[in-house]
């Protein structure tokens, strides 16, 4: 007999364990959560999105993805904790309850399942997908350089051996295309949030150009307020800004694509690091990381709920 109460949220887990836990979560909250397969990965693993919905038809929705870069383990670990948080707070947290009474949340915890498995079995430092590249011995594409947003521009590599290889064409990676197809076919997403690790940043578009987006002031204001809440828990300091201005110019990124598609509230998180571990953040920091991130996520989601467009 299994229960989400016996699941250790303060530990890193394999893909199989996370997928199995998803079934448990769905079984415990059948009126709130469904697990949808949105397609298969390059190596034919299913990609599951958890849909949190209290009913209605094609309600406005919020997209959250974690784990697009395989070695950033704290990202999907935060996704797991967040899914459980949404499930357990619905009905008790008035704000989240009101949000879910008008909107749906889609959470893709393992956006790059092949890469994630590979980090458990072969190379803990693997970042990309596992697709084969024609004419090269090097495998994989950086799935956050593969979106149709300034694709092929500065800040992405054309070399298959690079960790930031953009791929042969936009949406060439099946993992990216599966998400693109879902978002487009749904047509009513109002926010798109992608969760990475580690630099302690909250970013908004653009990455492929250093030009300001039309909603720069609003996104910046939302980001700063969200980070203020995040910081209030443990004092973790974050920077806020456009990808291009606070990290570097990077083309083909997911939130640039979502913003250009018309999803105004597009953000990317770089979760915390203690300055000592990088991608090997100790598991005892998963829950603190997820807890502080939740405050920022919740702020963004509440803002989206209160500012329909």
């Amino acid at each position, binding site marked *: 007999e299994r229960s989400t109460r016996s699941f250790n949220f303060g*530990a*890193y887990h394999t893909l199989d364990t996370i997928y199995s836990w998803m079934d448990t979560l769905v079984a415990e909250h059948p009126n709130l959560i469904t697990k949808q397969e949105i397609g298969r990965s390059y190596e034919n693993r299913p990609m599951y999105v958890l849909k949190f919905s209290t009913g209605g038809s094609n309600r406005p929705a919020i997209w959250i993805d974690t784990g697009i870069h395989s070695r950033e383990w704290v990202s999907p670990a935060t996704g797991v904790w967040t899914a459980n948080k949404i499930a357990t707070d619905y009905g008790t947290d008035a704000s989240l309850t009101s949000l879910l009474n008008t909107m749906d949340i889609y959470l893709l915890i393992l956006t790059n399942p092949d890469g994630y498995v590979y980090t458990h*079995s*072969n*190379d803990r430092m693997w970042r990309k997908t596992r697709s084969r590249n024609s004419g090269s011995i090097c495998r994989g594409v950086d799935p956050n350089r593969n979106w149709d947003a300034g694709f092929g521009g500065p800040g992405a590599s054309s070399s298959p051996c690079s960790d930031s290889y953009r791929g042969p064409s936009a949406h060439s990676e099946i993992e990216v295309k599966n998400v693109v197809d879902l978002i487009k076919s749904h047509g009513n997403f109002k926010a798109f949030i992608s969760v990475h690790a580690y630099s302690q940043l909250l970013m908004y578009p653009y990455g492929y150009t250093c030009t300001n987006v039309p909603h720069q002031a609003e996104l910046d204001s939302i980001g700063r307020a969200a980070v203020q809440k995040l910081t209030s828990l443990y004092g973790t300091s974050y920077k806020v800004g456009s990808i291009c201005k606070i*990290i*570097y110019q990077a083309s083909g990124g997911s939130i640039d694509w979502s913003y250009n598609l018309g999803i105004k509230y597009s953000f990317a998180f770089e979760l915390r690091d203690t300055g*000592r571990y*990088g991608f090997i953040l100790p598991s005892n920091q998963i829950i603190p990381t997820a807890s502080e991130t939740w405050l920022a996520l919740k702020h963004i989601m509440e803002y989206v709920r209160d500012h329909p467009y």
Partner: protein
Amino acid sequence: ERIFIGDQVIRVDVQSEEQIQLLQALETSQEWELDFWLHPVSTELPVDIRVPRSSLSSVKDYLQAHSIPFSVMIDNLQELLDEEKAEMEVNRMR
């Protein structure tokens, strides 16, 4: 499995544009098989580089030769990964 025995992650707190350019030159070179965890882009953000054991002395010589200050963030990556793996195993058994 890939083994990271003796690999270090070094952190560079970049102090000038010139240092950024020198690190960017390192980034494009494939000779030392460096893995940039955080890229050289600004003096406001640190640069973290995973350096294979075989390249450690060359990289450190390069940084010292150009007066680029650095510290060792992770002394032996494999030790951390072994701890991580052992912890996962214990958790799985539990």
